Each structure stands twice: as C-alpha cells, then as structure tokens.
C-alpha cells in the first residue's frame, strides 16, 4: 500500500472506483444497486483516507500527480494532482458520499439503479474537479457533475422538482459556458506567448495577461464560480434546488458542490488572474457581496417556514463567510475559509440528513408541523442540537474554528467588514435556535408526532461520524490546518507577486490597452521595455 500512496495512480483509481460502481449499479439488479453504491463509496473512502497521512506536509507542490496526453493536437492532457486544498476537498467528498448514499436507502424508492448510478457519476465528477490539473479536464468534470445532479433533483425531487432542476441547470450552465469561453481565451493567450497550445494548469499559470483582459477573464471564471458558491444576487437557485432535491441530493449539493465554486476561485480564478483578483474593485465587490450574503441570507433564513429552505439559506450565509475569507487573502482568513468549507460540508450535510430523516417519517418539511420531538426522538434531538450549534459556530465545534479564523484574518485587512460579518454570529443564533426549538422543543402538540420512532441503527451510524468530526475539528483542527498551510502560503505568495509588477508600473489605463491590444501582447513582457521588443518576443 505504501507504494500506492506514493504513486501516480491513486487519484486515477479514486476517480475510477465510483465510475465503475455506477456501471455496476446499472448492470446489477434493482435491489442490489444500493449495496453496490455503498460499497463503491466506502471503498473510495477507505482508499482516500490514508492520503491524509501520506500527504507530505510543508510543500505546495502537487502530489500524486499523473499526466497523460489525451487530445494531443490541442495540448489537452489527463493531468491530476493533489495539494493541501484539494486533499481536504477530496476527503470531504469521500466522507460525505457514503453517508448520503446510506441516507437514501429508505428515501429512494423508485428507479434505484439510476439513482445510485447518478450519485456515483456525480462523485466521479466532483473528485475530478478537485484533482484536475488541466483546464479542459476540469471543465469536463465540472459539466459531468451537472448532469446527474440535474436528474437527481428532477426525478427524485419534491413537487416542484422540474422547476428547481431547470433553474439549477440554467444558472449553473450560464456560468460555466462563460467559463469555457474564458478558458479558450486563456489558452489562446498562452499560445500567442509560447507558441504551444496547452490546457495544462501549470503552463497556463505562466501566461502573463494584460490587466484589462485579466479582469474580463476573471469575471467570466468568477461568474461561474460565484453562481456555484453561491454569492448573493445569484443564490436563488440554491433554496429551490435544496428544497426539492432528495436528501442525498441536498447533502451533496450543500456539502460538496458549493465548495467547488470556492475551490474554483482558489485554484483557478485567483492564481491565473492575480491582478484582477487583487484589484480593489473586484475584491471590494466580492467581499461586499459575501458580506451581504452573510447578513441577508441569515435574515431570510430566520423567517423561513420550511426547514430545508432555512438550511439552504444558512448555506448562503456560511459560504458568504468563506468568500469574505478567501478574498481578504490573509493566512488566517484563507485557512479559515478552507476549513470552513469542510465544516460547512459536515454540519450542513448533517442538518440535511437529519431533516431528511424526519421528512421520511412525517413527509413534511414545514417547521410548524413538528415540535416536541425531543420527547419521542431523544437521539435525534441530541444530534440536531449538536449540529445546529456547529452551524452557528459555537466554540468547541468545528464551526467556530473556521469562522474565528476567517474573521480574525479578515479583520486585519477589512476591519469594518469583519465587524459587520461578526453580526452574522448573532443572526446565526437567531435563525437556528428558533428552528431547533420549534422542531424538537415545545409541547408535543401534534398527534402524528407522538408515535415517531427515534433514529434507527442505520441512521445513527450515518449521523455519528459527522458528530464525531464536528467535535474533533472543533477541539483539534490543527492537523487540518497543517495540511493546507503550505498550499495557502504558496497561493498568497503567487497572487501577491503576480499582482505586484502590474500594479507598480505606471501603465496607462488597462482598459485602453485591452481595447488597443486585445491579445495582450504588449504586456507580455514588463511594460518598461519598448513595444518593439515586446512584440518581437511575443511573435509566434
């Protein structure tokens, strides 16, 4: 096994397992699909867990890389690799997936084969997004994931599933198409400068792009990622999708899919376009939108009658924290943001699982239909309380560590923003506690609720690991922080260095350059040199 984890093939194996599992689901009989899926996801988990320890600390280099030519004519390669950020995302995915598969056992009653196959394909897509080191490959995985999610919402969802699925699809597809254009433009820039076509991540990192064009490309990437995150004005697909999706769909959506937006910023949008990513306008806009998301989503969450919708809005608020942390670009805020992505995956995933469990019993998501469940479902009540506390960031749970790091880091750059964001802490209590109260506390006034059974063994086994992780990360997050620190350092350094020469130079209005020279050739070399040499060096 030692050699496997030092090898190049572990990631490919990880990608292959769920895909093969999906085929297995489709090939096997209907009744065995769930077990096949569970087996595949557990196998992936078992394979990926050792990565946490074999991962080499202190280096920002990609590890376990593999690279094979795929479409040689266009410089597209199958290139995958792991760094501190993607490691955590991979583990989050492999932890969440078995749980959400197991959480669907009693929920999904029709077309089981198709459902579990969709889940597994989705998993391949998500893992692929997190390890892809080739922009084309990344885009392929990014889109692969969209399709099973669309079906999961659209086939196994609630009453308004079609509306929600289409909304989800349209929002995400709009963003990703723009991103595709930007990827092609980026590759074209690279070709202009180096004369080779390549979609390779590290090749493209070397491309230097005029500030004006950076802004454009960053916006295109950024829109795709912002929709996924989701940032404030483009978040409305999320509540609908969450509400209508089956439990597993919501869990994966909140737990993992949303992270891909932030991951996209960290991996692609920011390092590729450092000037744009640090320009005051962009940072100001995104931080402001994140801040609005934190406060506004908390407000909206507080008045939701539908438990799933409430949780959906809390996702917007939490991801607002993450975005603020990412763009504050300090060590603490970035590490906090990445940790908070993991935290949010765990606690929101757990919330959706728990709400799904009572939904299966009562077939309603309305908070008002419950009350006093603590009496009949004590374990459920205990779990919901712990998870809710994690979600509102109580110290000792994982939520606090993430939020604290984000806020303390952000405060050093944007004190006012951090102070306003901190009010989100109050609002978090203001939306989560009433929900908890109205579900598990208060009198057990409804007769339907009187006979409810507490969580069964399977459900307890689903919830328990999440509770364990909530407390573990709450009291001892250091191992997680250690794993990401080198990558975070490298990212900050790369973004700040990349931004420096451009900002320092007294270049004319970047927009003007972009207009006069859309190809950005003039800026290919430091602007201090003459235009002639710049043109010469940039010639094909």
């Amino acid at each position: 096994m030692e050699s496997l984890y030092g090898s190049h093939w572990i990631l490919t194996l990880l990608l292959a397992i769920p895909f093969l599992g999906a085929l297995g689901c489709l090939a096997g009989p209907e009744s065995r699909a769930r077990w096949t899926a569970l087996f595949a996801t557990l196998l992936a988990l078992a394979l990926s867990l050792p990565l946490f320890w074999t991962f080499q600390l202190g280096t920002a280099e990609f590890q376990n890389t593999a690279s094979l030519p795929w479409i040689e004519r266009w410089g597209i390669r199958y290139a995958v690799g792991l760094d501190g950020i993607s490691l955590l995302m991979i583990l989050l995915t492999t932890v969440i997936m078995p749980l959400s598969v197991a959480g669907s056992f009693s929920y999904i009653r029709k077309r089981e084969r198709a459902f579990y196959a969709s889940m597994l394909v989705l998993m391949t897509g998500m893992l692929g997004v997190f390890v892809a080191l080739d922009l084309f490959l990344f885009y392929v995985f990014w889109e692969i994931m969209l399709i099973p999610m669309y079906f999961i919402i659209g086939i196994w969802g609630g009453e308004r599933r079609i509306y929600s699925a289409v909304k989800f699809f349209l929002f995400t597809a709009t963003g990703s198409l723009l991103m595709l254009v930007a990827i092609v433009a980026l590759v074209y820039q690279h070709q202009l400068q180096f004369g080779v076509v390549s979609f390779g991540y590290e090749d493209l990192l070397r491309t230097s792009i005029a500030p004006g064009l950076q802004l454009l490309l960053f916006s295109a990437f950024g829109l795709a990622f912002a929709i996924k995150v989701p940032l404030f004005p483009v978040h409305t697909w999320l509540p609908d999708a969450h509400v209508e999706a089956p439990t597993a769909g919501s869990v994966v959506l909140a737990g993992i899919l949303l992270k891909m937006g932030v991951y996209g910023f960290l991996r692609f949008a920011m390092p590729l376009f450092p000037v744009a990513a640090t320009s005051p306008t962009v940072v100001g806009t995104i931080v402001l939108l994140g801040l609005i998301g934190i406060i506004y989503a908390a407000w909206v969450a507080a008045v939701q009658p539908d438990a799933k919708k409430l949780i959906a809005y809390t996702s917007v608020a939490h991801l607002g924290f993450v975005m603020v942390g990412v763009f504050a670009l300090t060590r603490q805020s970035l590490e906090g943001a990445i940790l908070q992505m993991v935290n949010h995956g765990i606690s929101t995933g757990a919330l959706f699982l728990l709400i799904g469990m009572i939904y299966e019993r009562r077939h309603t998501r309305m908070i008002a239909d419950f009350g006093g469940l603590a009496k009949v479902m004590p374990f459920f009540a205990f779990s919901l309380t712990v998870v809710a506390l994690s979600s509102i960031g109580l110290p000792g749970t994982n939520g606090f560590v993430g939020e604290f790091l984000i806020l303390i880091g952000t405060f050093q750059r944007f004190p006012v923003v951090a102070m306003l964001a901190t009010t989100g802490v109050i609002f978090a209590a203001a939306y989560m506690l009433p929900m908890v109260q109205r579900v598990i506390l208060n009198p057990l006034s409804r007769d339907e609720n009187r006979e409810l059974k507490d969580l069964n063994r399977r459900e307890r086994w689903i919830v328990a690991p999440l509770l364990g992780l909530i407390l573990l990360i709450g009291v001892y997050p250091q191992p997680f922080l250690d794993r990401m620190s080198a990558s975070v350092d490298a990212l900050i350094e790369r973004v700040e260095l990349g931004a420096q020469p451009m900002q320092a130079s007294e270049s004319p209005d970047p927009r003007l350059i972009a207009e006069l020279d859309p190809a950005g050739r003039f800026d290919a070399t430091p602007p201090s040199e003459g235009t002639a040499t710049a043109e010469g060096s940039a010639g094909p």
Partner: protein
Amino acid sequence: MSEAYHPILPGLILGLPLLGAALNGIGAFAWRENKTVPTIVGPLAVLGAFVVCLLNFAAMRAAAPHDPSLVPLWTWMSSGDLEIGVTLLFDQLSVLMTLIVTGVGGIIHVYSVGYMREDPGYSRYFSYLNLFIFFMLILVLGANYPVMFVGWEGVGLCSYLLIGFWYENREFSDAGKKAFIVNRIGDLGFLIAMFLMFGVFGTLDMPSIFEAAPTTLLAGGGIATAVTLFLFLGCVGKSAQIPLFVWLPDAMAGPTPVSALIHAATMVTAGVYLVARSGVLFALAPFTQAIVASVGVGTALFAASIAVQQYDIKKVLAYSTISQLGYMFVAVGVGAYTAGIFHLMTHAFFKALLFLGAGAVIHAMHHAWHETGDHGDPNDMRNYGGLRPLMPITAATMWIGTLAISGVFPFAGFFSKDEIIWEAGVRGYAVLWATALIVALLTAGYMTRLMVMTFHGANRSGESARGHLHEVPAVMWIPLAILAVLSTVGGWVQIPEVLPLPDVDLLHSWLEPVFAPAIEVASGGAVGGAHGEGLAHEAPLGGGETSWAVGGTGLALLTVIVVFWRLSRRRYLPAAESAEPSGAASLLYHKWYVDELYDRLVVRPLLAVWRGCWRIVDDRLIDGTVNGLGGVARVVGWTGSQLQTGRVSTYLLIFMIGALIILGSLAF
C-alpha cells in the same frame, strides 16, 4: 518561602466534570430510569474537582510568589502569526474562581439531588450541570481569550439548555432561546475585541497581552478604549447589564438550582471576572472605566426598582442579582478590582443561598399542591405567607442571606458592599457613591418584602395545601446551612483595618499579584501601593470609613426593620384574587415595559425587514429578475411562434421574402 507552585492535576479539574457530563449524558439515553448513577456521578464529579482546586489553592498559598503558571495542553489552532493553544492559566484569581465555581457548584449539585429527584430528565439534568461546571472552569482558567471564549459561550450553551430544561413548556424554551441570542449580542463584542487585540498585539495570550499593553497601547487612546468597550459589550450580555439584562429574569424558567448556580453565583459573574482579569486593559481606558461604572450603577438602581414590585419570588431574586452585578461593575469600573471579586464571592454565597431557599419553598409548595391537586403558581409570593413555622430551617437560613445581601454587619455582604461603596466614594465618584447607597437601601427593602411575604403574616396557600407543607429533606437543607455559614463568615476574609475588629487582609494580599499591574497602570505608575494610597480618605459627604461603615449597616438594618414592621401588617391576597398593580407600581410591576419596548422597537421591525428580504428582495426582486428574463424569452418565443400559423402559404411567403433578401443582396 517554599519552592515555586506547579498546578496539581490540572487535567483532573476539567476532566472530572467533563467525565461526569459524558457519563450522565450517556445515562440520559442508556439508563434513563436509573437515578443512582447520576446521584453519585453528578455531585461527585464537581466535588472531586473542588478537592483538586483546594489542593491547588493550598499549594499556591504555600508557594513563593510567582508568575502565573501556564499549563499548555495542545495546540488548538495555529495559522501564520496566530498561535492559539489550549492553555490553562493558574494564578491567584483563577484558583479563587475555581474554588467558588466548584465549591458553590458542588453544594448546588448536592441540593439538586433532592430538588430534581423526581424529574424524568434527572440524568440529563446532571449532564448539563456538570457540563456547565466544565465550561465555567474553562472560562476562568483559560490562558488566552479564545479559550476563555470557549468557556464563555459554553456556559451560555448550558444556560440555554438548562433554562429550557423543561422544553415542553413553550415559554421556557423561548426563555432559553432569548438568553442565548441576547448573550450572542454580547459575544459579538468579545469576538471583535479579540480581533482588535490580535491586530494590535499579534497574540491573544493574556499574559503576553497584559505585559505588552502598557507599552503598546496609549493610555486613554482609541484602541485601548475600543478594545475594552467591545470586551465590556461581552460582559454586558453575559452579566445582564443595561441594555442586555432582559434575558436574566426570563432565565428563571430553569430549575431553581440552575438559577442559583448559573444565574446568580457563577456564570453571570463572568463579566465581572473578565473585566477584573483584563484590568490592565481597562486601566488604560478611563473612558471605558467610566462607562463600566455608570452602566453598573444604572443597572443596580434600575433592577432594584423593578425588584420592589415583583411577586414571583425568583423574579425578585433575578432582579436582585442584576442589581448586585451592577455593584460589581461599579467596583471594577472604578478600579477596585479586589472589591469587585470580593463581592462576586460573597454574592455567590448569599445569592446561591437565597435561590436555594426560594427553591426549597417552591419545592414545598409544588409538592403540597401536587398532593392536593390544586393548580396555583408555586413561584408567586402572594400564595405564600406564614411559612416560617412550617419550614424553620429554610426561613432561618434565608434570613441570614437577606441580612447578608442587605449589608448588615457582620454578614458577608456588609464587608464586600461596604468596600465597593467606600471605594467609589474615595475615588471621587460622588454620583456613583450616592446611587450605590440608595440601591443598598432598596436592596434591604425588597429583600425584607420577599421574606415577609414568604415566611411571615398569614398563610395564603389554602387550607388543604397547608397540611402538606413541610420542611425540605436534609439533602436540600444541609446545602442551605453550609451556604448560610459561608454567607456569614465569607466576608471576614477582608475586614477594613479601620474597624475595631481583628485586622484581616486575606483577599487583597492574595489577589495583589494579579491586580498590581492594573493598579500600577491606573495610577500612572506614580503610586506603588496596592490600594488606598493617594486616594481621599473621606466620603463625598465627609466622614471617614468607619463612620460610613457603621452608618451603612445601621441604615440597612433600619430599613429591614421598618419594612418588616410595615409589611407584616399588610394583608396580601393570593395571586388568583389580587388585582393588577396600578400607577407607578404598575410601571415597576411591568419592569418599565422594557421587554415590550424591545419587542416593538427591535424584534418586530427586524422580523418585518427579514420577511421583506425574503418575500420582496428574494422572491420578487432577484427571482423576479431571473424569472423575468425567462419571461422575456418566453414572450419573444411566443411572438416568434405566432409566425407559425399552420398556413403553408404564410410559410412560403416568409420563405420567399427571405429568399428575396438573400438573392437581392446578391443582385444589388
């Protein structure tokens, strides 16, 4: 002197309550009916911790003066410059606090065995209570602000859980929620203060901050003021001061021992502890100091005024607690940190005593009514009266507590309260001094009223119930007795030298190493003495310490006697038969309508805005825009589809026009 002090078994202090919480927590699921395990595990965990604390206290007394001892446990989070370890801090102040927490906590645990015995959630109750002790110990032992914050929010959580312990009562769970949310507003300040401190000092470790503060921060400067103001916001929330006090009276929804432990003796005093602990910072910010003292005295007066007209016995005690907390803030606000901690300690004794006594009465009333099948409010003092012969021990111990809180010599409250008032006076805060005096009289007044209504006069609980009223079992009255003793002798650790009594100076000298830096900063380094020097030796109205001490106790005693004499003749009606108070009394009875005011001015507008955000901004504006775009596409599509008439001739016409355009562009 002997060798340096090393913390003894620090892990055990925290570990025992945590273990107890875990065991009882498992018990709440696994052996819900079993009452033996919680009975043993719950109190023992705390008392065990108390013993360890005592050992530490003894060791520290024996040891040489020293810097605070740090016990690093593990790295919590380390990111860039930010290094936060789970580290415990053992110094004179924190050890004293652990003694109070585990000592009073242990007594209350024992009492709870009797009080909660018949509750179905017995095991769960002890789990929460042990967890509370655990978090409270983290709060007082935390060596850096984030760890302290863990305890800070942790006790809030336990408070939330325990207030809403009888969760099936909607009001009770509402009260818990309110407590949590209001506390969170304060916590916001704590968090921001931490962010600021990290920005300024680059660390959140208390010893480093306190060491660096005098040189890093400008005395009276903006940063020092901001940091301390934000910290104080946290204290205002946790210690129920104006304007965030509203949660504490509601918190009385919890079981009475909880009110005694959390909402009187320990948790609510955390704010005072925080200010005292951060004395160096506060000393650098005179403006904040003034705010602290003003808020403290304002709250003291305000809450006392409400307490005068309450009929719920626990509400009276709750407002009394708020008022006494105000005193403590006056003390720490004027820089008399020792006096604040002193009052914190004595208050822990006598307020716990009073609450437990009230609990005994409620317990007895509850049982009596349970037997007779009557349904009255066992908390309403209008239903009591004349209980003294029926519950002699409770009555006696509660009288001790009343005299203690009223500041009658020689009970504990006299020494601590006298010191606060005196310190305020000699430091030149005439208004504070005068108000504190008035509040002291009010305190004596409302407490005597409570005692009269409960234990004296005619019994109003009804014929049948009276036969079932009897003294509480030993497991409950023994804690009362212990606390009564403590409420009596607790003040003797610090006797002013001016009084014609044996000169005892235990507390000041004990805490001196902790507060010396703060006092040094406050006096601008000019005065080296521990306390007192450089200050006036007269109260604002003239007169020395002795005369005011004697006068104070005399006034308090006089108030007690007058109020007793007046009220014991008054005939009260049982709650069910009495009318609403009118006039000024109504205003006080309704607590100055603060809750209603908050509801109208804050809660409802906020909810309206939130709903507006959802219904208008999200549903209409954003989704409206998105769906509007979809609608535009649909309209365009519909318009286009109108060309598809189903008539072949129309198609041909359009086709021909198209062909004409293409050919025409070729031809011309």
